[in-house]
């Protein structure tokens, strides 16, 4: 019986060799892949056992990691003024993952980014604790706070986006209602779940980043794009006469399209294009849209960034004109009704391109990534997305917006600063109060800030709400905060 016993011994050795080979495969060859799997709690715990980098804006600390004294999660995220900055910072939770810049720049913040390889090596040699890198945002904290207060203080729903037209820096990106990311930073799974469930079902969807994700009907702010298309077509200039009728019949349809309040556009039967813009005459821009045609209108929208996938670094929903079947819908599209949908970010981009001589700069939220010792790892270079319109067209549009600003109410006006703006009042379904829009840049001659503000459902005014009543004061306060450094 010895021969088979020896063979059995060989088989036993073979089994052990197989086990060792497989263990090597799992623990060495596949180890990195397994460690980076989503749902791997250990990786998460490990991330919580080293201090995560800070989020900074203009020298102000937005998010930092504080030691907890606990065994499991040694560090905890703290957000200063959480709800105001939540749309930018996002949150970082061991239950619900992460969002915003916390998610987009996770590799830098947790210290695993390639750009931090040298620091990791250094730490390994000196035995120092691993630390995450820091991220400096482009936000202007003063403007961000103002934007949030303007919305949340009034208890309205809406969003504000402010850009630096020259380089695309996002100066403010605020939503209301908002949430406090500190609620997802705690040690207790149950408390997080409680907060999550409450926010998930809360009225007004506080977790939604309206600035980049919510698609609103743009109302009359869209006339900027219609005007751009008209000027580009060569058939129109600043003074071209357009209809001033209080109401027109939509072609191939029984419906009519009236001006706001059924007013005539000025005192004459026709009005120059700039006056139609200043008075936001629907009839004029509907006919202009019908005249330049769908193709030109789409091209103009596209050059301002419609339909382009954009990450700032959070992804921005695609604004679009929707389906346009025939002339009547085209007329309605021309005044921002029908199926036109825009994010606040997209509308701020329109203002930004006009402000920057027609050059559309790519919006971005991350200014620099920094090593733990604050040395710069990477700086975001301004990037031009497109030449939305030629410089002179941009200037013509600017002049029209200056005229528009003169008719857009006085609330919150800033003395000594010329703003160029366009208001919008977007109907969105019967029985609902309109959304108010205000798109602007300032100072008109040397733009530093481009802003888009939207206040949903009539704000605090109700059915009589207009962009100039509910959205303009918000945006002007943000501009003032940016230009003068104080609300």
């Amino acid at each position, binding site marked *: *019986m*010895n*021969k*088979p*016993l*020896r063979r*059995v*011994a*060989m088989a*036993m*050795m073979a*089994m*052990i060799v*197989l*086990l*060792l080979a*497989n*263990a*090597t495969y*799992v*623990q*060495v060859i*596949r*180890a*990195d*892949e*397994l*460690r980076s*799997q989503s*749902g*791997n*709690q*250990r*990786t998460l*715990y490990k991330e919580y056992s080293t201090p995560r980098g800070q989020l900074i804006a203009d020298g102000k600390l937005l998010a930092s990691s504080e030691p907890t004294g606990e*065994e*499991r999660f040694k560090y905890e995220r703290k957000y200063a003024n959480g709800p105001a900055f939540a749309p930018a910072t996002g949150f970082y939770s061991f239950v619900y993952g992460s969002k915003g810049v916390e998610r987009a720049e996770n590799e830098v913040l947790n210290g695993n980014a390639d750009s931090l390889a040298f620091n990791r090596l250094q730490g390994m040699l000196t035995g120092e604790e691993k630390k995450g890198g820091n991220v400096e945002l482009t936000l202007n904290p003063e403007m961000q706070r103002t934007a949030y207060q303007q919305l949340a203080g009034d208890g309205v729903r809406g969003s504000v986006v402010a850009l630096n037209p020259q380089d695309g820096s996002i100066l403010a990106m605020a939503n209301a209602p908002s949430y406090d990311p500190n609620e997802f930073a705690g040690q207790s799974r149950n408390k997080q779940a409680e907060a999550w469930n409450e926010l998930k079902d809360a009225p007004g969807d506080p977790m939604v980043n309206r600035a980049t994700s919510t698609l609103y009907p743009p109302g009359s702010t869209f006339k900027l794009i219609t005007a751009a298309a008209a000027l580009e077509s060569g058939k129109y200039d600043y003074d071209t006469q357009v209809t001033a009728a209080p109401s027109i019949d939509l072609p191939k349809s029984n419906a009519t399209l009236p001006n706001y309040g059924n007013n005539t556009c000025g005192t004459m039967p026709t009005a120059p294009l700039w006056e139609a813009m200043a008075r936001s005459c629907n009839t004029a821009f509907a006919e202009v849209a019908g005249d330049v045609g769908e193709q030109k209108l789409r091209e103009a929208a596209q050059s301002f960034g419609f339909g382009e996938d954009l990450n700032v670094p959070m992804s921005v929903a695609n604004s679009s004109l929707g389906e346009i079947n025939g002339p009547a819908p085209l007329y309605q599209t021309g005044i921002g009704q029908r199926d036109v949908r825009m994010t606040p970010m997209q509308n701020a981009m329109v203002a930004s391109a006009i402000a920057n001589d027609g050059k559309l700069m790519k919006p971005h939220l991350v200014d620099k990534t920094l090593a733990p010792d604050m040395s710069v790892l990477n700086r975001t270079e301004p990037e031009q997305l497109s030449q939305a319109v030629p410089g002179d067209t941009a200037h013509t549009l600017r002049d029209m917006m200056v005229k528009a600003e003169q008719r857009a109410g006085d609330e919150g006006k800033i003395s000594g600063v010329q703003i160029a703006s366009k208001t919008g009042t977007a109907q969105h379904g019967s029985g609902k109060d309109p959304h108010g829009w205000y798109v602007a840049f300032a100072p008109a001659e040397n733009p530093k800030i481009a802003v888009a503000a939207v206040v949903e459902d009539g704000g605090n005014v109700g059915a009589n709400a207009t962009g100039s009543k509910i959205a303009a004061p918000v945006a002007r306060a943000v501009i003032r905060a940016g230009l003068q450094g104080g609300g």
Partner: protein
Amino acid sequence: MARTETDPDNPSTSGSGAQEATNPPRTPNRRGIELVMLGFVAVIVTSALALISINQESQPGTQVLYYGLAFLALFGLTHLAVRRWAPYGDPLILPLVAFLNGFGLVLIHRVDIGDAAAAERAGETANAAAPSQVLYTAIGLVLFVLLIKIVSDHRTLAKYAYTCGLAGLVALALPAVLPGFIAPTKNGAKLWISIGSLSFQPAEFAKILLLVFFAAFLVSKRELFTTAGRRFLGIDFPRARDLAPVLVAWAASIGIVVLERDLGTSLLFFGIVLVMIYIATERAVWIAIGLSLFALGCAVAYPLFGHLQERVDAWLNPLTSDSGYQLRKALFGMAEGGIGGSGLGGGRPAIVPYAKSDFILSTAAEELGLLGLAVFLMVYLLLTARGLRVALAARDSFGKLLAGGLSFAISFQVFVVAGGVTGLIPLTGLTTPFLAAGGSSLVGNYVLVALLLRISDSSRRPQQPSRPQPKQPPIAEAHTELVERPR
């Protein structure tokens, strides 16, 4: 093979004739080596326990030392018993077992700490498994000592072969036929008998009883199996009626899968029976027949039983399938351990379900790394290789076959369980011998090594020099004597 001709350990392996030298030198019993090794094991295990205390940031008090001394005392007493009743037994088997058992206790204690921390967070209390495992160790060692004392010659076991076989079958079938309140279904398998708070797995003992039966049965019926039947394709097939024992074992295995829903036990039994038939008959065709039957069984059972499909799905897609979450967590833990491991007390093994029983090897792999896992596997290889040496050295066929079967049983069980935990083969519910928490398994395995030691002792014990026969001339050669009848 692990043995060379010059090996001083075992002078009796090269055949029964080797012992014939007149007045052989006194065989060294090498119990001293055993004692030194046991001391060495105690030092390693105590250090491991101290490491856990240090890494869990509590002071390693003198308590650790007491535990170490108690461990040494327990195995020291066992050593004395072996010295008394099995003085020629293999000197490595007990230290190897002590190493596994001791490290098992350390790892179980490690997971207890993790469980306690998790329970504290949830506001509950966790049951520590280490204290009861210490108790089982003591029970196991007492049984071990009793066995080598009472069974002074393993050949007496062969006399009770049919009793053992019957008892084994009953024990194996018991949980399947008993009602649910005595034999509850745990983790999908109906393998347990619970009376009050006590529960045990009869299969662990049935394994040994059936091994004894099969060894005796096969030795007595060896000729039957070697009788050639029909020759087909160059292979001698056994006669159909000789297939009966294999078929019975096969049917029993399938019965286990169906009634007790336990893949591991089924696989283990069938594997052991096959290998024992192979060792007994020296004919590989039995393996081929067995494997074909196994394949057939799989093919028939797979589509019929949901739990089989789940197991296979979990094995093939551990990262994505719902049923793969246990394996997934174990793999994550192993990947985290990498080559060197997180250090004892430095990882998070308690995340893995059943981290102290079924998945204790993943605990070892996480905290001790690939290297630590390799050490455990090598210790198993050493243990089973020593067992096979015992088989090779055994002087009687029954001892050979029993020792071979017992050794293979350990080896195969390690393969099935370690292969399952590391994702090499589908996961089954077997315990890791001596390491895993669980009373029946530990006590059963002590019975198993007691038998090995007993066989080893009798095979190495110097044979009583046979009494010199009075020299008598053969009757045929004797001179014919005429005996005269007295007159």
